């Protein structure tokens, strides 16, 4: 731990650099103005938290495949990941669990004790509906519509007077997670609304029997993607003589393209994600930067052809991995005071389905990362994939309440007290204990 009273600033980034970068990114001056960093004091002043919502129901059994579980391979069939040390195999964490081969950066952190998995975590919601489950995940309630504000916003309230700890969401509209009494900034790459990268694909399917619409959409997308590649190239050229991390992040203007491009070129998608991560890091380590950030990624609803070491889900995980890598690198020395949690609204069926995908399930994997994590194995218990252990005979059974995971991070990393956690942040949750020993 560094001296907690010293202001956090990036050695690589002067205020002028930050301002120039922000201008390039279309960030408003208001964003850079704001309060002096001294607003949050003591140990809290240096702490940072990033919460990533992976929308669509991220498949925990692919994020952290339990290749050592005797039932895994048979349940998963064609989408099972090969064992450790095999081509395209899982990246080993312990004897049972690995990480998806696309999560190389997460794996490198895990080897240093800076990333851990919670392999069977779930919200209290069991309806297997995206909308309901996301509401519950973000609101921190026990039922849908339980509250109209997000738990992360209420956590900010619990951390003291409004404005003491400031937050930002990435994306054109604020996710429920950060909505509420405490005003949170929001920022979208390039100032443009973030493109739902799934929509074009869904529409192509819907237009299968409408050749006129189908051709118009295909042609429009192809033109748009060419324009965006051109714009990404232009940004790349600009970067050549702008070595500071925040300047490099300037290229993230082209990020909306990243999602579209990720469909065709996973490596380029991950590269764009890396820039987005670096951009967020730059925004957080400014002298008056935000300490808390909410980010959401979509595209995890893999009902068909989800792939194994490569494919649809691998591309999304590569995107997530790239983002995390960019964030960690961009944070530099501030990484040691940062915790990142990536969670999803529910997991997916343990069985592969008839279209080489998986359907809506229950427990999934959450990733917990941070420069100052405590070493330890998995967070929570592993229920195993034995037939009798599956929830309702189909899903990974939950052994850890999602709220407990968040509570543990808020308590041990940001010092939110237990009473506030049990009442204000996660209402009526006294029975849910904070997961101990993470930070």
């Amino acid at each position: 731990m560094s001296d907690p009273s010293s202001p956090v600033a990036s050695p690589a980034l002067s205020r002028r650099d930050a301002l120039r970068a922000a201008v390039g990114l279309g960030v408003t001056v208001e964003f850079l103005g704001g309060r002096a960093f001294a607003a949050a004091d003591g140990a809290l002043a240096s702490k940072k938290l990033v919460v990533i919502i992976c929308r669509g129901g991220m498949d925990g059994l692919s994020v952290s495949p339990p290749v050592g579980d005797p039932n895994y391979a048979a349940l998963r069939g064609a989408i099972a990941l090969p064992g450790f040390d095999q081509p395209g195999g899982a990246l080993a964490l312990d004897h049972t669990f690995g990480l998806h081969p696309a999560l190389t950066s997460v794996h490198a952190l895990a080897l240093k004790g800076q990333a851990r998995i919670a392999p069977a975590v779930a919200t209290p919601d069991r309806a297997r509906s995206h909308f309901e489950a996301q509401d519950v995940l973000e609101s921190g309630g026990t039922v849908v519509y339980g509250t109209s504000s997000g738990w992360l916003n209420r956590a900010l309230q619990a951390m003291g007077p409004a404005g003491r700890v400031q937050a930002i969401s990435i994306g054109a509209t604020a996710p429920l997670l950060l909505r509420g009494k405490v005003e949170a900034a929001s920022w979208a790459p390039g100032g443009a609304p973030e493109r739902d990268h799934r929509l074009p694909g869904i529409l192509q399917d819907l237009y299968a029997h409408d050749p006129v619409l189908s051709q118009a959409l295909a042609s429009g997308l192809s033109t748009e993607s060419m324009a965006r590649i051109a714009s990404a190239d232009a940004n790349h050229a600009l970067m050549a003589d702008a070595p500071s991390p925040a300047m490099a992040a300037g290229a993230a203007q082209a990020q909306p393209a990243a999602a579209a491009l990720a469909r065709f070129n996973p490596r380029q998608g991950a590269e764009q994600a890396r820039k987005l991560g670096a951009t967020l890091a730059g925004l957080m380590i400014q002298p008056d930067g935000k300490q808390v950030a909410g980010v959401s990624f979509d595209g995890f609803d893999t009902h068909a052809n989800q792939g194994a070491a490569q494919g649809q889900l691998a591309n999304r995980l590569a995107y997530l991995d790239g983002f995390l890598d960019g964030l960690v690198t961009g944070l530099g020395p501030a990484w040691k005071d940062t915790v990142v949690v990536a969670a999803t609204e529910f997991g997916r069926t343990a069985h592969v389905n008839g279209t080489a995908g998986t359907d809506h399930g229950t427990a999934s994997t959450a990733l917990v990362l941070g420069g100052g994590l405590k070493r330890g194995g998995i967070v929570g218990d592993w229920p195993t994939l034995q037939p009798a252990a599956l929830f309702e005979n189909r899903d990974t059974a939950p052994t850890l309440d999602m709220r407990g995971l968040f509570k543990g991070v808020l308590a041990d990393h940001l010092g939110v007290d237990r009473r506030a956690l049990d009442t204000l942040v996660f209402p009526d949750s006294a029975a849910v204990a904070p997961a101990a020993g993470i930070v």
Partner: protein
Amino acid sequence: MAIDRDLRAAIAVTRFGLGARAGEIEAARADPEGWLTGQVRPGGADQPQPGGPTAAQRFAEFRDYAQERREEKAEGGIQKGDKADPVRMAARLLRDDTGADFLARVQLAATTDAGFRERWALFWCNHFTVSATKLVTATLIGPFEQEAIRPNVFGRFQDLLIASSTHPAMLIYLDQAQSIGPDSLAAGRMARGGKAGGLNENLAREIMELHTVGVDAGYSQADVTEFARAMTGFSVGGPRMAPDQVGRFMFREAAHQPGARTIMGRRYGQDGQAQALAVMKDLAASPHTAHHLATKLAAHFVADDPPPALVERLKRNYLDTHGDLAALARTLVAAPEAWAPEARKFKTPYEFMVSGWRAAGTTPQDLKGVAPILNGMGQKVFSAPSPKGWPDETAIWCAPDAIIKRMAWSEGFAAGAVAGRDPSQLARDALGARLTPLVAQAVARAETRPEGLAILLMSPEFQRR
């Protein structure tokens, strides 16, 4: 039978109307045809609220503005970029007026319970297009629709035609106001004063070609010229007229070409404005006009390439009733060809956005969220590319760039409009029995509520009607 009625209710609201608001398809279910014909009323279409100034007031304001502008120019010019410049401010106010007219019209469409009545009105607004190609016509479009079109859409076609052809907006837009008969008193005066002036055929030609008999009716250039001569004198009261005449229709006897005219084989010996009015009545009664209007209506409501039986049905009714537009609307509703299950019309951007607001139960409060989007999709506010009005063929609007822009708007709109509601329910409300299992499944499988609504808006079933 019940299934058939469910589908008919959905077609009534989405094809004949402006798209369904929640509960609307259910309301139409008991009697889909009656739900439509109940919207036909002698008083005409609804008026956007607030109504705003009349054409005469707008015209007077514009003349004041133009006068000031001339004076300022004479005094040594306008400073570039000076926002406080009164002339620039006036120009901005006039533009704001136009924007307010458009927003009121859009709000009416987004909220009305009589979607068929409004669609019918919009059809005639487009049939008698006045486009914002000049600032003065821009400010007159709202009043034109309210004064000349909306009150007459369920009356006789000849009255609608005459109301349009004598409204200041149309007279200025198609250059009729300054058309002067070559042998008129006014022409003589001007010649002596060394000024040029003469016949302008623009409105006469468009009335024949676009508003009535159609380009294939067999008329000649001589017929157009003769009609233009008959119309000389149809003008607008200028700033030097008595206050109650400024900006209103006025027949300038002195500009009228004297003598009898022969148009499409018929002789018109009337004096003064009675002559052109007689021509218009004959044009309105022509079987060519019946055919032209029947074809255009069928193409607008049913299919780009409309069923000939439907066109024939409409044409016959038009002739039998001497152009009774209320009867024509009822005939359209009663025609079996208009209820074909397949949705063959592709929504224009205006229709698309209106139906989107209706599906989400929202109303735009600000032109900023409307005008740039419509412009981007190719349907600039009050600015049809020609007097022919906006086309409504699929091939025009279902273009690659426009679809990308529709998708972008749908995403952004859905993110703000879905407001915690279940997109599957919104889909059922918006499409009723027209909701296919494929679309229902895609909406239900959406990862987020906004995505679900965006899928609905972009579905073929929603984009077609």
